[in-house]
C-alpha cells in the first residue's frame, strides 16, 4: 500500500487522500485585464511534466487539510510533502554514482 506523509498526521494510506491538481498556481490579481488566451492558459494549461511534479493533495479522510506534495510522475514516488503556503522544497537531483 502506498503511504503518503500528511504534514499534520504523519504517514497514512493513500486511500485516505484526494488529488487536487498542480500546486503553486497563483490566481491572477486582475482577471479582467487579461486576454481570453491568457485566462484560458491560467485555467487549463498545466506543466504535465515527466518526472517530479508539485501538486496539491487533500487528506480527505483524515485531518481534511490541503497540503502540497512533490511526486515523481514516472514512478509514483512521493519525494516530499509540505504544508500549503510553504515554498516548493529545493530538490536538487542526487548525483548518479
Amino acid at each position: 500500500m502506498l503511504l503518503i506523509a500528511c504534514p499534520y498526521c504523519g504517514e497514512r494510506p493513500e486511500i485516505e487522500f484526494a488529488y487536487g491538481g498542480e500546486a503553486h498556481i497563483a490566481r491572477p490579481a486582475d482577471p479582467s485585464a487579461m486576454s481570453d488566451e491568457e485566462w484560458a492558459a491560467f485555467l487549463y494549461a498545466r506543466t504535465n511534466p515527466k518526472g517530479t511534479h508539485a501538486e496539491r493533495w487533500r487528506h480527505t479522510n483524515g485531518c481534511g487539510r490541503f497540503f502540497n506534495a512533490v511526486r515523481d510522475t514516472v514512478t509514483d514516488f512521493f519525494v516530499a510533502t509540505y504544508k500549503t503556503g510553504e515554498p516548493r522544497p529545493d530538490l536538487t537531483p542526487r548525483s548518479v554514482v
Partner: protein
Amino acid sequence: MVETALRRPPLAGLVPPPGDAVVLAPVPPAARFILRVRPAAQTAAGEAFGGPLPTIACRAATEGARAALWLGPDEWLLISPDAPDFTALAGVPHSLVDVGHRQAGITVSGPRAAAALNTGCPLDLDEAAFPVGMCTRTVVAKTQIVLWRTAPETFHVEAWRSFLPYVCGYLAEASREFSG
C-alpha cells in the same frame, strides 16, 4: 397525519456477532460539536467546553465524561453527555456546529476488535502505532468514520447516522470470522 421522528439507537435490529472476540455496543446518547478555532482562542474554548483541547495531532483528551478529539490542526470533535455552555466564546472568532443529530457512536471491543476493524480500515492498529488515546478520521470500507482507541481492546467509532447501519453491519459480518 402527524409524523413522529423516532430516535433509533445504533445497532437497532442488528444481529450481533456470535462469541465475545468482538463485541459491538452503542454508546449512550451525547451532545456532539465540531469546533474550529485559531490557536489564540483554544484555551478559552477549552475552558468553555469544560475540558482541554488536545494540541497534539490525532490525540483525544477527556475530562470526566467529556471528550475532545483532535481532527485537524484547528478542528476538534467535542463529545459531552450534557450541553456545554459556550456563551464564553461570544466575541471570539470560531465555528461551532452542533452535529449531535448527524452522527452517533458505537464501541468495538474485545480481543479481536482491531482485527475486525482492519478488515475495512487500512490503518496500522497495533498498539505501538495506534496507542490508547489516539483518534483520527479514517475509513471503514466505503464510509468515513472517526476512530478513537479508548482502551487497549476498545475502540470508539463515530459515524454519520445514515451510514451507521452499513458500518455496524459490515463490522458484525467481519466479526463472524473471529467468533470461532
